[in-house]
């Protein structure tokens, strides 16, 4: 009889997997990466990463609660700031002049919509006004995944409001996302689907992060890998570094 009970458990386990809801999947996800209670108090992270384009480029990425963020690219000892946001202004360093330039107003407006996404857009998504639906299963990288659609605040593209939708693919075994897809909504690649693949989840002070990301176009081979070397939780930062430098003076060498 014991055997039969075991079998029964197995059978019901099969059924319950089939009947997952989006929220159940997200709950398992948060549990598996360390728990919501650990994630919520996070004030910011600093990511040290490398991009290998034949030439190795070092990146330092800051993402802070409240929206401040910055990517520092170091090339030949020179540091260029990319995608810097202080809550108001989105800016980057121009490669040619090495001076800070503001990003287009629309990009800034759209970037502002993500201010509350740290540390995870799915965390308290209802309070943020987002919605989540389970779209079924799909095979990604040979692995079975749950396809979850995340709808965020509409973006503005060429003066028009457009839906802000992304799809996350959660591994059905581990309940962590292994891919994210999003339609490119502006620029020459508009209308094509971008894809980021996640792997190498590793623990940092009780929380799991994907230490490897590959960015490319959906279904196409290739893509640019970003390898994360180190993640620091709640880093000490001077908030002034996110501010757009209004006047540029020649820095002394």
């Amino acid at each position, binding site marked *: 009889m014991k055997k039969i009970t075991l079998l029964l458990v197995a059978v019901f386990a099969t059924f319950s997997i089939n009947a997952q809801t989006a929220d159940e999947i997200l709950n398992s996800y948060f549990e598996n990466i360390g728990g919501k209670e650990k994630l919520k108090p996070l004030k910011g992270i600093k990511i040290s990463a490398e991009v290998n384009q034949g030439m190795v480029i070092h990146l330092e990425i800051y993402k802070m609660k409240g929206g401040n963020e910055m990517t520092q690219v170091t090339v030949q000892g020179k540091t260029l700031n990319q995608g810097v946001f202080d809550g108001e202004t989105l800016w980057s360093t121009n490669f040619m002049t090495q001076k800070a330039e503001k990003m287009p107003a629309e990009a800034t407006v759209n970037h502002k919509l993500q201010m509350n996404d740290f540390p995870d857009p799915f965390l308290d998504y209802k309070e943020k006004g987002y919605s989540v639906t389970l779209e079924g299963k799909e095979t990604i990288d*040979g692995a079975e995944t749950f396809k979850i659609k995340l709808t965020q605040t509409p973006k503005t593209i060429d003066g028009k409001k457009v839906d802000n939708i992304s799809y996350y693919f959660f591994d059905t075994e581990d309940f962590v996302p292994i891919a994210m897809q999003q339609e490119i909504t502006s620029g020459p690649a508009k209308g094509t689907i971008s894809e980021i693949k996640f792997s*190498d989840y590793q623990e940092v002070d009780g929380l799991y992060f994907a230490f490897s990301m590959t960015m490319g176009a959906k279904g196409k081979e290739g893509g640019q890998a970003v390898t994360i070397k180190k993640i620091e939780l709640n880093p000490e930062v001077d908030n002034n570094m996110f501010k757009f430098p209004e006047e540029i003076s020649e820095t002394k060498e």
Partner: protein
Amino acid sequence: MKKITAILVLFIVFNFTSLYAQDTIILKSKELFGALSARHIGPALMSGRINDMENHPTNDRIIYAGTAGGGVWKSNNGGATFNPIFDDYCQSIGAVELDPNDPDNTIYVGTGETWPRNSVSIGDGLYKSVDGGTNWKKIGFEKSERIANIIVNPKNSKEVYVAILGALWGDSDERGVYKSNDGGTTWKKLLYINPKTGCADLAMDPNDPNILYASMWEFRRTGWSFESGGENSALYKSIDAGKTWNKIHNGFPKGKLGRLAIAVAPSDSNILYTVIEAEKDERKGLYRSDDAGESWKQLNNDFGITVRPFYFSRIVVDPRNPEVIVKGGLSGSISRDGGKTFKSLGNMHSDIHDITFDILNSDRMYFGTDGGVYRSWNGGTTCEIAENLPLSQFYHISVDDAEPYNVYGGLQDNGSWYGPSSSPGGINARDWNSVGYGDGFRVLKHPTKNIIYSEMQGAENVWRYDVDNKRDKTIQPLPQKGKPKLRFNWNAPMAISTHQPDRFYMGSQFLHKSEDMGDTWKIISPDLTTNDKSKQAQEDSGGLSKDNSGAENHTTIFTIAESTLDENVIWVGTDDGNVQVTQDGGSTWTNTSVNIIGLPKNIWCYHIEASVFDKGTAYAVFDGHTMNNMNAYAYKTTDFGKTWTNIITDEVIGFVRNIQEDYVNPDLLFLGTEFGLYITIDGGKHWNKFTNNMPAVAVHFIDLQKRTNDLVMGTHGRGAIIIDDISPLREINQEVLHKKVHFFKTKPTVLNEESNFSGSFGSETQFVGQNPTKSVQIKYYLKKRHTFGKMTMEIQDLEGNKLSEVSPGKSKGINIVKWNYRIKQPKVAKGKTFSFGGFSSPKAKAGKYKAVLKEGKETYEHEFEVIYDPKSKLSKEDRELQYKTTMKMYDMTQKLAYMVYELDAILEKATVLKNKKLISKLTTLKKSLVITTGDNYVGSAEPQLREKMADLFSKIAGSYDKPSSSELENLSIISERFSIAKKDYAKIKKKIKFLEELKLKTFDEFVK
């Protein structure tokens, strides 16, 4: 207890696969293929057939093209470029419709093209997207085969009408007009005539959604005939949203009718236009009603209006002017006087199927033709092609053994071509070469000479083209004394021999053989077909409009295969079901199709593949779609056709057109079906659909390039598609599948030294075909997708010294990692700006290396080799000199970098200490070492030692050649200058007391 038994049964059913899997691993499609991916090379310069154009009702930047064989494409920029949005589904499209109330999100796609020429594909139902085309759901009409129109009530999104043209080659009751009141969940048939009559066109009154017009068409095609028209073709009107329908024929010609088009003027819904195919030529043509169909007047029966009604019957009225109408046709026609007179549209590809006006400006028009989408800015007078739609429709494909190899093939309505499989900057439109007119079919390269054979429809011309001298002549077999008239298929078979390079075969009802490249022909068979006279009356084909294009020629040979193992063994397949084989070079023939159990009689033998492993072994595939049989058929014989085994499983969806045997592993087979590519690694026991960057497009022909092991597919709607190097599939067996990691064997990689000159002009809006990689490819199988924990890959020399880090693939199944055989770029001194030369990475030397894969605690190693191009003229000594010089400069660059690093640290400290003398000395030295002012563009400063050193390093490292004497001379100047700088620096450094406290990195730490 009963309950428990039931649960047990359930359990067994649910878990049987997993229990079984412990013994045998069966991977399905994406689990198996992993990162093995297809690349598309076009061509797009002639594009392919378009079935339907669709505007967005409020955004004039958005245009959709529903294509005959290449899916649905969307433009976001007013037709400048398009993106495919329907790749996973049936690629033959009938109609695209946006819900006018929710046009950004709700899209309906009806599959199955509706201009039913002989070569049309089939649809498999109606699809709907509610998120702008990201996700699709099939919502019915599985057996509809062709959907002509979809109309959503502009006042109520729930009300959807669908016009089903239906099956072309057989009876079907899934035809007529259907309506849904719940957005497509349930459907009601509103108008149905009989199993032979479908709805060819449907229109709604723009002012009153209850008023509908439907044209019903009686039509039928067989493999050998076409019939348009009958008693049941008619134009109907409903004024009660489709509940009741009445014929509106007041003023119509008497007798049978054929295909009718209907259009309502958007700006005045009393004005209707129809084009009528009638019994009498003088009564055919354009008719107009000014009273919403109460009465009709004939206006015009010009050629442009009456030509081939089955192929061209679309009428479109200018949305702002009811007197401006456009009609599809051979050239397309436009009238500005309400249909009384027409002029041809501007020059563009012939065969215009659909037209749409811009929503805001009638001067802007879009045309869907047999050769892609055209745009006009001046009301259709001047037309320009959209250049990024790779919709070319191949009937056949072949490859040669050049390097890079070329791809040859013929296209529906677009001639014959060849182009390279790789080209600097990608495969561009200009890389393709025309080698034939008309419809193109088979194109074959002479095995040894620079000669190409090509043909046009029905072997009306078969060309032998001398590529070097640009001379062509026609060589088709001509009628012979005492022999009956030759019957060539529209897509006439030709074949070459691996035994005799000058041998050339053609098939009519006879097999023709030439030993002198087509100058002299000999018939080496009796009539190998059924010679069924009832299938030879093509002159009477067409129905109400005669249509004898040669496309319906039947009882002909369709495929020829000479065994590569024995030239006397020749296989011949016919379009009427015979599989003939001779084992004595044509003296005696045996029809073996009678031995195939379960094969429908007279079914089209589409391809025979003679095995390269055994001369008695062959594969034959059959396509019954022209008999209204959409099943898949593929068989194998090992005894010259005495017995045949079915190798199809129910995993294969869609009728089969081609099969390709691997050259190495007899169990590895590739199957081209109407809905894509299938691959088996176990001789046909299981088939896996290949979907990695491979649309569900009809694969008409497959070839395998022997040197590269590239699988080259001729698709009928998405051009040539290549899967580079399928060799990993050869190695996969149960032993491999049970390993955690398995590295596949790879051939040595040639260090590429070819120039990158390409000139990418025009690529902003032109399709550019993807090149194969030139990098080293490390290929391995992973049993499980890697998600948790660290996984890295290093490239090391055999002693274990690290040369590079690469990012490993993590997929379950096959992974492909690329290494560009370069080591890390040198660490370059920090200056005010970049040293562009310092971005160069030296190439590794030829030799053996290993890839070291680390996953958690496990380490896996794989050795591979890179070699110099055997064509290179450099000696071993030259190579050695180049490598040594490059590395010398590499080291020098890094030493300078370290010197500047130290100097900067000292300078910083000196500044703190306000040691003016030291600051001055250091600053002067530094200014000679690196650039300290300016920017990275035209504001750049005069180059200093760093720039000169790095530029020479880059120049030498990037050259295919050994260093020249002038480069070496330059090197000695730089070396000298560096020596002086080092001495100057040493002098300064000697006197500094605080070096220790700076805690500087060592050189090794610094360059790491």
